[in-house]
């Protein structure tokens, strides 16, 4: 049986989220997979042409409906289910978008979901982290069972541009509920790189001590062109907003360089940075667990080290 993968595109109405290109790479890892991306939006034309450029995508389906202006799982799920018939796999990213939506799709399809796929070993066999990444589980599903999956974006490179998939309008007959309504989203506008995809991340923990003190990290990040992240402790304490949280229940990231400043390194945090190429730890406690995973460790007072670093980097 041929493998046909449907990928649910994540987007903000104007731009495709990079998570979609990572799902494409995951699907391309399955030998012989034919990949279709579905874009559900109020106006899908610009998004569809972005998706069509992703190398490896054969077809882009668009589902246009004013109800799709905001990504509501209860509204999107029946539309995806209506399209899922011919596909063997339905994938979405393991971001808050996909985590919210994909299980709803799986339940309507009466099938299992494989969450956080980090490798597709065959069309039916997948590896995924469990216990905050402290164990890796290989799961297998019977051939012939439709599979819903969320893709752990940190495990995959983005698919390159250069493709030219056919774009097709899909007509979907599905009853869309009105019981769920979008009210607002409060996203801080920032000129810094996006935390999820940044190649460099400066991240701060409880030791920063206040929201004011946390700002020294923004200044260092700007010198490096880095995104800013935070540990759960720093977010809980109100030093940084929730969207900066890195870890088991926050964002799982894979930057080239991750600098952990004043972060002790609880396992829940470490699971979010395992795939970072180089980890730097700056902490006054030389016994902190973060040093066990750090490639470069510096024991000392962060309030002295961070300004020094900033000066040295600016002078280079």
């Amino acid at each position, binding site marked *: 049986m041929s493998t046909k993968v449907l990928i649910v595109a994540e987007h903000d109405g104007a731009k495709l989220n990079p998570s979609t290109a990572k799902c494409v790479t995951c699907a391309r890892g399955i030998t012989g997979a034919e990949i279709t991306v579905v874009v559900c939006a109020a106006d899908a034309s610009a998004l569809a042409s972005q998706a069509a450029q992703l190398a490896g995508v054969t077809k882009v389906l668009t589902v246009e409906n004013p109800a799709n202006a905001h990504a509501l799982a209860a509204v999107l799920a029946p539309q995806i289910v209506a399209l899922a018939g011919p596909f063997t796999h339905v994938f979405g990213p393991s971001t808050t978008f996909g985590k919210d939506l994909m*299980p709803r799709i799986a339940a309507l399809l009466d*099938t299992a979901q494989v969450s956080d796929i980090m490798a597709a070993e065959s069309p039916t066999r997948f590896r995924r982290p469990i216990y905050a990444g402290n164990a890796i589980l290989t799961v297998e*599903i019977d051939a012939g069972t439709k599979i819903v999956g969320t893709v752990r974006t940190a495990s995959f490179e983005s698919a390159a541009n250069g493709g030219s998939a056919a774009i097709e309008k899909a007509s979907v007959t599905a009853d869309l509920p009105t019981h769920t*309504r979008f009210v607002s989203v409060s996203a801080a506008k920032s000129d810094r790189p996006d935390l999820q995809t940044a190649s460099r991340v400066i991240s701060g923990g409880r030791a920063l001590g206040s929201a004011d003190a946390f700002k020294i990290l923004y200044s260092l990040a700007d010198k490096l062109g880095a995104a800013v992240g935070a540990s759960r402790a720093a977010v809980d304490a109100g030093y940084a907003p929730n969207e900066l949280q890195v870890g088991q229940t926050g964002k799982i990231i894979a930057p080239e360089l991750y600098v952990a400043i004043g972060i002790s390194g609880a396992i829940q945090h470490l699971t979010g940075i395992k795939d970072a190429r180089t980890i730097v730890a700056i902490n006054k406690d030389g016994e902190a667990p973060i040093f066990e995973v750090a490639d470069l460790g*510096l024991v000392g007072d962060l309030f002295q080290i961070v300004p020094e670093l900033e000066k040295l980097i600016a002078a280079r």
Partner: protein
Amino acid sequence: MKRILVGIKRVVDYNVRIRVKPDGSGVITDGVKMSINPFDEIALEEALRIKERGGAEEVVVVTVGPADCQPQLRTALAMGADRALHVQADGVVEPLVAARAILKLVEREEPLMVILGKQAIDDDNSQTGQMLAALWNRPQATFASKVELADGKARVTREVDAGLETLEVDLPAVITTDLRLNEPRYVKLPDIMKAKKKPLETLTLSAIGVEQKQRLKLVKFEPPPQRQKGIRVKDAAELVEALKKKGLL
């Protein structure tokens, strides 16, 4: 009666260092401390607070799992749940099975809402709440950090990748909790005594008409790859040099 159902799961305590069995058949759970999944504790706390504010009259805690889940149900009763429902199930209970079982209880109890943790810290699946909402054909508000009830609706603030999103959902609905929704209360000794007298009903999957179906075969468990031990540098200047050498600056 205005009722809230809370789903809980018994998991390896979050402080336990997880070890994979040498034969790769699972993780070591013998003699390991078990607890209520921390996100589910937050779910229960939220339900109790809603009841204390007059938004509900009864909080019913539900679990689907083996017989040894009962201590966690008793803990939930000690926290303040009014009664407990235990759907006994052996073997691996996949999220879809758990959702189907909870749906059966939803049909019986007709709650105003069901609150569950956004994920269990053992399998990290993050599926059961969404699946329940789908099967029930009701709204879902996942990853909640604030819940306000008024006029048969819930206004829920959700922690999403972009920041904070607010949804309005008609009740009944399924809500899953994020970390910052609340801080669960501590259980006091007299409450533990009282909890022993609270009703705990035991059911089975077959009695409620749910098939125990495992679709995903657990092939093997492995420890994660370890990172190479790194080096220490003595000051900021040495750090910058080391980063340059790695081509990172």
